[in-house]
């Protein structure tokens, strides 16, 4: 792991929305593009003050199975929150509720100040500003790496091909995969595929990135390259909600660790406290199991 200290995050690593590009400015849909530098900055400051995500009393059931039973969670800009908890505890479900892949049954989830249950909220706009990376990569197998990355900017934001490809190559360059730009995904290793999947999300310049156990499908020797990339993003100030089984990673990269069990966030706090001195018995039991399995 290379990211062990984070001296002063670059606070504007997530660029302010460019008023000229269609569809940017998540907190101001329909607001007239700010013209002066000053009002532009003001809009951004507003945005930074708003919680990126605020979940209150979130309930979610699948048929008779109640998975989330009142989840509370607040995230500010640049926060990195790690969700830990045993398999089946509802981590994925919570993430999927945040970008409307699932609808919640009760409670509210506010994203960038908007209640997701509001019927004026457009789910495509929610997802445009909220990247999601899956355990199983889910790259588009019929598209080359470059086209995987440019698809959404081109088709959703209307960026022209040349600009989209230039940006995509820049991103691929950053993860050292520029030479794979014209390969199909199945020619890449799992670690490479997952890094491309992350870059594919980044190409939309999301304000919030949801990562769902992004290393769980990888061979052990490929885990580090993906975690390094995520750590780098954290270092640059990306706001991230991360479901993970990598406790060492969570300890290093998270501002807040949330332990999910029985449909609730049983305990949350800075990683030093959660891993060093957990107060809840459930958290202790969970961490003990992890230690016994030799994974901490």
């Amino acid at each position, binding site marked *: 792991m290379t990211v062990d200290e984070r001296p002063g995050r670059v606070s504007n690593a997530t660029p302010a929305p460019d008023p000229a590009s269609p569809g940017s400015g998540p907190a101001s849909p329909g607001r007239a593009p700010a013209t002066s530098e000053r009002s532009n900055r003001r809009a951004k400051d507003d945005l930074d003050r708003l919680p990126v995500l605020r979940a209150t009393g979130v309930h979610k059931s699948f048929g008779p199975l109640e998975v989330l039973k009142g989840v509370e969670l607040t995230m500010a800009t640049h926060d990195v929150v790690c969700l830990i908890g045993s398999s089946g505890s509802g981590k994925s479900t919570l993430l999927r509720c945040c970008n409307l892949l699932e609808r919640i049954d009760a409670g509210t989830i506010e994203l960038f100040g908007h209640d997701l249950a509001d019927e004026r909220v457009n789910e*495509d706009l929610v*997802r*445009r500003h909220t990247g999601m990376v899956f355990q199983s990569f889910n790259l*588009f197998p*019929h598209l080359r790496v470059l086209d995987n990355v440019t*698809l959404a900017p081109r088709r959703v934001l209307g960026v022209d091909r040349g600009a989209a490809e230039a940006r995509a190559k820049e991103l691929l360059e950053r993860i050292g995969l520029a030479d794979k730009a014209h390969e199909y995904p199945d020619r890449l*290793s799992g670690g490479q595929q997952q890094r491309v999947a992350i870059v594919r999300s980044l190409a939309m310049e999301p304000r919030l990135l949801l990562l769902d156990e992004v290393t769980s499908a990888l061979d052990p020797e490929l885990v580090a390259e993906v975690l390094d990339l995520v750590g780098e993003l954290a270092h640059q100030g990306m706001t991230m909600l991360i479901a993970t089984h990598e406790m060492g990673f969570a300890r290093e990269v998270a501002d807040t660790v949330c332990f999910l069990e029985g449909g609730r966030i049983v305990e949350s706090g800075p990683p030093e406290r959660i891993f060093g001195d957990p107060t809840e018995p459930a958290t202790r039991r969970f961490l003990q199991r992890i230690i016994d399995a030799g994974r901490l």
Partner: protein
Amino acid sequence: MTWPSRRAPQAAAPVGTVTVGGIDPGPPSDEDLPISLYSSHRPRFRGRAGTAASTVSTLVVIGGLVALIASPAAGSFRNGFLNIHQMWIALAGDPSRGILSVGKGFVLNIWLSLLCEVIVLVLALGVASLRLTRGPVLLPFRALAIAYTDFARGVPVILVMLWVGFGAPSLGIKEISTQSPVVYAGFVLVFSYSAYVAEVYRAGLLSVPRAQIQAARSLGLSSRTTLYRVVLPQAVRNVLPALLNDFTSLQKDTAIVSTLGVAEAVHSAQIAGGVEFNYSGFTVASILFLLITIPLTRYTDRIMNKDRNRRLAGTTA
């Protein structure tokens, strides 16, 4: 309880037996080994022997076929179906005796199949999408789509052809009843094949993992863009061989149009056969069809193999 010994009783060979007379017994023969790995068949042909063997067998088969056709007993067959002179007459046509050109007729077959295929590919996608919709509002359409595919696939094409070809003109509705038989024929082919192709599309659409759709939607792609840019390309790629197969069938089934008296290849061959009392025209029509369908099926096979290799290669994690 004691288990019976699984060791086969062995001839006692005392340690240190001296070979009598200094004769080396050599490597143990097959019978000496507990498990035989020797083939009881003769060894297969390999290398040059294999090439020679395949040449001989090919010559034998071809020679046999030639002998069969050339034998005196097959004389009337040769004359009736393989008469070069008659084949030429059928191919080129002879207007003075009312013999239509099979070659010209075949152009109509090709043209019709291409036009129909294009329409089928579009319509079938609509039908397949309808069948895959969810929600109560579209229920009647869904039911209609299911009824249509069941019906169109369940009735022989030739029956629909007769039904429309002879039924429509007798309806007495000007717009419907006065169309040319080619239009009826095209309608029937599109009607029947859209149902088959819709089912192929549906299988293809269902073969795309839902995770792909979720990944696309998570990037902010609309459901429409997701369908056209992510789902459909993968779906079509997964069922391309089946689509090509159906196209080959459609190509062949344009022959059924002959029942409506349209001057396509088969009908023209029928006319030539009737005038000349010779059926070499049918041979000509068959050859023309084969000229199109064999490359098409070869191509389909190639795609299928490529596709299989791609799948078997799998992905690495």
